[in-house]
């Protein structure tokens, strides 16, 4: 059914909102907060799209999903078709529909947003993907082309999964090497169940497997085999590095050695990856006090503080040195956190962590900040207010102040160009590193970005790996 409404009529429809678990309920469980749009709401929301001649939303999407294209399919109630349309550009729609910062990407440029609220593109993406899953409509594309070349992907996060899917579709034999015992990278160990259920992640990862990618877990490239051994001994002709930015930064303030101080990575890994919420049925423990503080303003901080609340913290503080406006977290998560009773302490900077006689955290000393002139990042620089120090009682401090790339591969691979920040240097058109057969993307090159950027890099890299591998063939023929 095509959209018969006139633009003026479409604009009268208000933006539709997801059905959500009430905030009083959801802080007591790890179930998904948002249930997304149901069919009726999705159809109404889809009607709002103006099907623009120049669909700027597509430009806003890092992987360039044909947004009006899939929305039209929703109106036709061809949900499987809509999902396939998305999958032409994005093989992980159920994940992206849940975690992409749409408000900064496709939705910020949506024409409708000029005067009204933008189309809820992310919610529609999620609806389509969920509908397809719930009704078993997915059919794995058949790969007919087979190229007798082996390609290695290091890391099974969104960058690696995407690069793998693209290369398998082109016909290559692809192996993904993953250091941990399960796939997904941050999608599994970082992002909590209440935002991205493991079941959804498993389904989308399995689709990459069904497509034909082999996944080897428990394999740390650099240690189990070096990158050079993958190439020289195991016969991989090109490698994509998608090892992410897994190493947490610490504030380097006094008291960080105290028990009860954790990086968000450790905290979330214990809970999400090792299932510490189910202790003692699951063996990995976690200890959360009645009052906890999380430092940071990104998605990681938001996930950590909301997780702590669910583990029983009565007062969960979010301490951030700038103001609410500068917080890099997704708007939806900030809103949800607030609804769940997270206490935001903005323009506040921790000075030291104070311990008790058992070496456990008992308090944190903070200082108030004010915003000064914009710094290099374009954001206004926080400046301490003298004499504003104060102490709050907490039993845990969780630091979520960013991360840098894991150094294992860099340290064990000669000739790989590395920046001062420890990121791998690539040509940003081809994603090739300083070594012609090694490509890289995702957080490893950005140092902490987004799922969709990682996927964008994975796609770009796959295309240029294909080109490289074809050229190698040509060169071989010439030299022969």
């Amino acid at each position, binding site marked *: 059914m095509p959209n018969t409404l006139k633009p003026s009529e479409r604009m009268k429809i208000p933006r539709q909102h997801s059905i959500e678990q009430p905030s009083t309920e959801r802080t007591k469980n790890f179930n998904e907060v948002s249930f997304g749009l149901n069919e009726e709401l999705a159809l109404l929301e889809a009607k709002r799209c103006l099907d623009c001649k120049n669909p700027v939303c597509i430009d806003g999407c890092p992987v360039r999903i044909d947004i009006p294209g899939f929305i039209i399919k929703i109106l036709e109630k061809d949900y499987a078709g809509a999902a396939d349309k998305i999958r032409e550009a994005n093989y992980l729609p159920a994940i992206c529909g849940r975690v992409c910062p749409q408000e900064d990407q496709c939705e910020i440029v949506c024409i409708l947003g000029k005067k009204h609220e933008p189309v809820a593109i992310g919610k529609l993406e999620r609806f389509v993907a969920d509908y397809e899953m719930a009704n078993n409509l997915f059919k794995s594309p058949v790969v007919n082309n087979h190229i007798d070349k082996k390609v290695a992907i290091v890391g099974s996060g969104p960058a690696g999964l995407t690069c793998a899917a693209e290369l398998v579709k082109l016909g290559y034999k692809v192996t993904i090497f993953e250091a941990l015992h399960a796939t997904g990278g941050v999608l599994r160990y970082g992002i909590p169940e209440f935002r991205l259920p493991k079941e959804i992640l498993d389904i989308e990862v399995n689709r990459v497997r069904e497509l034909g990618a082999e996944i080897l877990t428990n394999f740390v490239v650099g240690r*189990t085999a070096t990158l050079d051994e993958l190439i020289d001994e195991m016969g991989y002709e090109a490698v994509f590095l998608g090892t992410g930015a897994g190493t*947490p930064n610490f504030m380097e303030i006094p008291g960080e050695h105290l028990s009860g101080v954790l990086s968000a990575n450790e905290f979330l890994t214990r809970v999400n990856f090792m299932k510490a919420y189910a202790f003692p049925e699951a063996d990995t423990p976690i200890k959360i006090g009645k009052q906890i503080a999380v430092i940071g303003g990104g998605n990681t901080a938001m996930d950590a503080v909301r997780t702590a609340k669910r583990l029983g913290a009565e007062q969960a503080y979010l301490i951030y040195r700038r103001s609410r406006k500068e917080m890099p977290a997704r708007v939806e998560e900030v809103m949800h956190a607030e609804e769940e009773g997270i206490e935001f302490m903005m323009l506040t900077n921790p000075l030291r962590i104070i311990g008790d006689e058992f070496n456990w955290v008992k308090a944190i000393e903070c200082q108030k900040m004010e915003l000064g002139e914009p710094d290099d990042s374009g954001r206004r620089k926080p400046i301490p207010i003298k004499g504003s120090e104060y102490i709050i009682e907490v039993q845990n401090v969780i630091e979520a102040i960013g991360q840098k790339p894991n150094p294992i591969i860099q340290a064990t691979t000669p000739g790989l160009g590395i920046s001062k920040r420890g990121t791998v240097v690539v040509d940003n058109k081809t994603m090739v590193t300083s070594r012609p057969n090694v490509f890289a993307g995702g957080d490893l090159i950005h140092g902490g970005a987004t799922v969709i950027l990682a996927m964008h890099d994975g796609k770009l890299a796959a295309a240029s790996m294909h080109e490289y591998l074809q050229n190698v063939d040509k060169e071989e023929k010439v030299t022969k």
Partner: protein
Amino acid sequence: MYKIIEKQKLSETITKLVIESPRVAKKRKAGNFVMIRVKEGGERIPITIADSDIEKGTVSIIVQAIGKTTKMLCSLKEGEYVLDFVGPLGEPTPIENFGRVVCIGGGVGTAEVYPIAKALRDAGNEVIGIIGARSKDLIILEKEMGEVCNKLYITTDDGSYQGKGFVSDQLQDLINSGMKIDGVYAIGPIPMMKVCANVTRPFGIKTYVSLNPIMVDGTGMCGGCRVTVGGKMKFACVDGPEFDAHEVDFDELIMRNRTYADLETISDKTYEEHVCKLEGVK
């Protein structure tokens, strides 16, 4: 799934397991460890690689059963499997020809110092071994250490076997006797490593210890294994686990390792009760 090819009980609480993992066998060097998960829902724990056989594709580990996970591991039988086994992790021991080195193993730490002693011997060092435990039946790898050391000293806290006292006392005796020592490797319980560091410090003898903080991933991702060395924060799983003993803040490590002690007791207790019930059925 990684198959247990061989199992040998070395003492009441210490078990040697030979596990199939050709890749790890091939790559491992002295000082490396593996992360093991015994079963679904289980913890990831670090265990040092004691030895390997490249031809058979096997890796030996020596495990002291102290809590739930190590008890489960030690209860596995030949032919059974561990779910996850990943490595080799950590920076390998920097092996050079120092001249004369003393390799000290306390308790199950002997399993960790053995591959280092062997590598040091192969690198041309004169290797003096000191191994110790609380009592006679807890001494492990006496024969193996004897084979790689030019001279091996054994101590027991209770005097039930060979010299009475601590390994550190033996080290002190050697130094006092005027023996020229070019390097020391000391691995065992944290207090033991701390004392050894204190023994060698006044003499400026380069001393290495292998730290055992609580780990989760073992790949540098969680920051849980952080230790203070020379006033700087280091991640034992990627920067170590071996560090310059004179720079390590041992007291901090001891405190941090107690973080989950009460919860670990709960975990252990429920496991023990479970095992007892099963055995009761038999």
